[in-house]
């Protein structure tokens, strides 16, 4: 995965060691990362690079300095967490609608809004999609867990 990154994990670690946190936080790489854990597994110095990636993502989101080019991924992760906060479990149909809508508001791209629209009927035909998704019964406790862990306004 590192091959496609503007700043590979090794360079991100070096930037941080040299005190260039701002540059590290604005790297595309931290949102291109797919969390496959390869860097952390193979690091000859046993640095938990994947854990550092998590920390950088969290800081960049909290400080509102997420890179504009990777907004789609940022919006997706936020929509995912809002969905769980509301339902306790992931409702895929709702997530897609919410993610597509928030991306549209951000980019005004109609082609992305309707991309893969034909997938929904195919998933229905295969009984892989439920119009009414599952929810946890005790959703209130999920809301309280979220409130205790994070500033809800970040989502």
């Amino acid at each position, binding site marked *: 995965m590192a091959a496609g990154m503007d700043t590979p994990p090794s360079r991100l670690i070096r930037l941080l060691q040299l005190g260039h946190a701002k540059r590290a936080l604005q790297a595309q790489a931290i949102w291109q990362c*797919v969390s496959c854990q390869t860097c952390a597994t193979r690091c000859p110095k046993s640095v938990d690079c994947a854990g550092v990636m998590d920390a950088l993502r969290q800081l960049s989101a909290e400080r509102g300095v997420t890179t504009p080019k990777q907004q*789609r991924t940022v919006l997706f992760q936020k929509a995912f*967490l809002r969905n769980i906060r509301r339902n306790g479990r992931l409702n895929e149909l709702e997530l897609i609608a919410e993610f597509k809508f928030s991306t549209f508001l951000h980019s005004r791209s109609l082609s992305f809004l309707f991309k893969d629209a034909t997938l929904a009927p195919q998933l229905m035909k295969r009984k892989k999609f439920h119009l009414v998704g599952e929810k946890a019964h005790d959703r209130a406790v999920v809301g309280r867990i979220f409130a205790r862990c994070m500033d809800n306004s970040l989502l």
Partner: protein
Amino acid sequence: MNLAYYPGCALHGSSNDYEQSLRACLETLDVQLREIDDWICCGATAAHSLNQKLAVALPARNLALAEGKGFREMLAPCPMCSMQLLKARKALAEDEALRRSVSKIVELEVRGDTQVLNLIQLFETIGLDRLKAAVKAPLGSICAACYYGCLLTRPASVVEFDDCEQPRSMEKILEALGGKTVDWNYRTECCGAGMTMANEQTVLDLSHKILSNAAAHGANCLVVACPMCHVNLDMKQVNIERHYGVRHAMPIYYLSDVVGLALGFKPEALGIDRHFVGKA
């Protein structure tokens, strides 16, 4: 055998074919799954990307729910879920203050001593000899590329499962069922995981390499044990073919699909007919 079952959101959503086949297999092998009452999402990549506390608390609540019912072992067939559960379990075991504070956050006392098993480990626990004895239709026509992806074996210090660079556990199961397996290069490369929607191009690029390498080494199917791998390699295969102008037509089976076939189930009974790519 009686164990707690954490399906996770995917197996109750668009990967319900995975649940169908693993339930069929385990019933035949006399394993009773007890779904955890009112389980919640593990938080997946979104939680560990945006909030570390949440990434521990969400899985911890599920561990506590299982512990409260007296379970010592839990099956989590999605590697994302099992990795998140194991990561939380490890963090709680190493830090008593964290364990106490997380117990308050999730409103349940969590000990963090439940064993979390992935599906390969469950088949290993059942035993290759027992699997072999239960085979009704040996997998003679299958020459599989066993695909582990990222989170089944990584991070090694958390999941402590097989060899993170050269795993063999799935091959051993396939071979016990009479199937053949190939040696290939992309067994532990990532398919793009949960980026299917947010960053499709990455998924198409990575998955194309995986499918091409498997075919080049003579595989006639891929076997996976992860719902995200299945989505990217099966559902997205048509997009990969369109983007690269190639034809892969590579069937993607869940591990429980091939075990189920060997146990004598029809493909429809396992949900294989609900995959996107047709049979070989």
